[in-house]
């Protein structure tokens, strides 16, 4: 396949290592301190936004690709970068528009898929698969494939 040959495997390795290292930092914070997961996520996002605002995080993104953008620090970086771009474009009001605009896709997707899951899966404590609820599993999968088609995959 043409696509497989176009993948840069060194890039993939850097992505794997950097993404893994960021997760190790999170794991050390969980094991060594008494911070709750929500606090750790907040720390990661805020750190990412600060580093993004200082322009440091972009170098990590250039180096590791999705290894830097997929962890929540990358989410913070996207927020800060969106704010900066929008300020450069439309002035003061951009500080209030830009960040949320950059994160809009992720937030909307989270809400959208959640609504879908709520309407198709039972509550968390019930074992969906063991109840033989294959219809909901299958329909979600089917639906997901349609979604990919809409994205022109």
């Amino acid at each position, binding site marked *: 396949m043409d696509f497989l040959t176009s993948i840069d495997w060194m890039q993939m390795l850097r992505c794997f290592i950097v993404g893994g290292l960021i997760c190790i930092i999170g794991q050390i914070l969980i094991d060594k301190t008494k911070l709750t*997961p929500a606090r750790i996520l907040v720390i990661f996002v805020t750190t990412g936004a600060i580093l993004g605002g200082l322009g440091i995080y972009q170098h990590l993104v250039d180096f590791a690709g999705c290894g830097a953008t997929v962890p929540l620090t990358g*989410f913070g970086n996207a927020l800060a970068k969106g704010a900066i771009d929008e300020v450069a474009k439309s002035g003061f009001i951009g500080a209030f528009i830009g960040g949320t605009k950059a994160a809009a896709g992720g937030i909307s997707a989270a*809400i959208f898929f959640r609504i879908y899951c709520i309407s198709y899966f039972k509550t*968390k404590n019930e074992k969906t698969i063991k109840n033989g609820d294959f219809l909901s599993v299958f329909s979600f999968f089917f639906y997901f494939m349609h979604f990919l088609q809409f994205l022109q995959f």
Partner: protein
Amino acid sequence: MKPIQTKKDYQNYVEQKSPNSPIIKNCFNAFWVGGLICSIGQIIFNYCKYRGMDIQISNTIVSIILIGLSAFLTGLNLFNRIGKFAGAGSLVPITGFANSVVSPAMEYKSEGYVMGVGGKMFTVAGPVLVFGISASIVVGILYLIFNTQSITLV
């Protein structure tokens, strides 16, 4: 058998008897699961680039697909097991963000749709959004004042 006399002896004794902290194992699991999730993202990103989309759209598509997959796995009750196994490995990537949105809402489904699902939806992910967006506003205003990114490593 010698009796344990000093405090230091006792500490050594406890350290010998207590099982080793599994932090190395936890870190290893977090490393490879987190790295794997990022690599899946990278593959999707490369495919988007291969189809000729620009970088920002590609990043959005990567996060949408990863969030969708993790919502799917949360609904199947599989993501909790991955989370127990990998710890921060599944929490720190954007998949954990989606899981934290999906999971509380599914627990509160019995409280009704408006206050149960709608109200409790962002119990875990809410702080992330609040602090992230606040930080982005501050960054935007600072950029407006100084009109430059103050540190730019070449």
